[in-house]
């Protein structure tokens, strides 16, 4: 829940803040963390201005009670934390690529859940291709805006430089003005889809690995076991899960155990035989 003190920090009224929290949770399962409530004014003011509305209260009044679904989508998109970067968290992507390529029996099939604007699946695709591992990647995010950006594969000068080595940038991207665009060879194996990790059921037992990094953190605690269950159902026996650096399955799922072979990953636990 949003801390009351934080709810009054910006220009929006407490009623508006409650409506926003409800909208976000209903659409995505995410909660507005108290330490991010301050962003709401910054995130929503441009939308209010664009629509000629005087305040965020007026903007949110438009969508209260289920009216104006398109605007509600836009508001939810703006509230989501889409922070990401190439090869985020030193070594994590390389570890995931190595581990998943090892456990897969054929061409690895991988799900990047919560892929934001695409830097994570592109990083994984680079790491796998450089290991000459053919692969299939499904990358999903709840934000339609983020998925559209990911599909375009176009990154600003600031975005391209965060975490991406220059040699990789030259190999995998083409310059277009001040932007950089992912080459077709890199994005060919990635299927970007808009999907909600809380509400949508992924296909069963098809993935060798799932990356779901920095997603659980934003979900209501009671939803996390459900999401981990869905991920477990989507993995083949022996499949691997990678969470964000500050996330864990401990206390939330007994279907995964820390991998002894691959540091930082979890292995799907084989079901116990029926007695």
């Amino acid at each position, binding site marked *: 829940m949003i801390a009351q003190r934080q709810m009054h920090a910006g220009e929006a009224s407490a009623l508006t803040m409650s409506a926003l929290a409800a909208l976000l949770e209903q659409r995505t399962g995410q909660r507005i963390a108290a330490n991010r409530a301050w962003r709401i004014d910054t995130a929503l003011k441009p939308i209010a201005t664009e629509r000629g509305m005087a305040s965020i209260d007026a903007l949110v009044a438009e969508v209260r009670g289920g009216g104006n679904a398109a605007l509600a989508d836009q508001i939810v998109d703006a509230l989501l934390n889409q922070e990401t970067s190439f090869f985020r968290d030193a070594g994590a992507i390389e570890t995931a690529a190595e581990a998943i390529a090892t456990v897969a029996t054929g061409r690895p099939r991988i799900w990047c859940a919560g892929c934001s604007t695409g830097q994570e699946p592109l990083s994984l695709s680079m790491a796998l291709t450089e290991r000459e591992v053919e692969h299939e990647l499904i990358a999903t995010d709840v934000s339609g805006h983020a998925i559209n950006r990911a599909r375009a594969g176009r990154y600003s000068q600031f975005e391209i*430089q965060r975490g991406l080595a220059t*040699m990789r940038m*030259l190999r995998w991207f083409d310059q277009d003005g001040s932007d950089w665009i992912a080459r077709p060879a890199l994005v060919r194996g990635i299927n970007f889809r808009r999907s909600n990790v809380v509400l949508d059921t992924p296909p069963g037992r098809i993935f060798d690995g799932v990356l779901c990094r920095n997603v659980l953190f934003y979900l209501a605690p009671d939803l996390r076991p459900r999401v981990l269950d869905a991920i477990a159902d989507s993995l083949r026996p022996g499949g691997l899960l990678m969470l964000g650096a500050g996330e864990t399955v401990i206390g939330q799922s007994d279907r995964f155990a820390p991998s002894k072979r691959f540091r930082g990953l979890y292995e799907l636990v084989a079901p116990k035989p029926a007695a």
Partner: protein
Amino acid sequence: MKSCLVVDDSKVIRKVARHILEGLDFTVSEAGDGQEALDACRSKMPDVILLDWNMPVMSGMDFLRALRTTDAAPRPKVVFCTTENGVAHIRAAIDAGADEYVMKPFDRETLASKLQIVGVA
């Protein structure tokens, strides 16, 4: 604590880079052109050099070529940091021995990630 030599003819850029680098736990020294940087390296070789391209007296590229002809051990990492943002310039810098390339303008996250990529942060 790692050391970084910031080579740029702009005092403002040197100041900004120093602020970021000190926040990343580097000890920072400065040079205003390539010749000053060469003199500084002869005196004490830093772990990493943040290098502008266009400077008076000696350019970043001429400095880099001169640096790479020395037998400095351990070999310092060189990160170009410049407004020359075209692919041809980037390739030329890498071919001349740069380890990484930062396109200006830059921020703390960009610089931190590049220093991590070259293994000094």
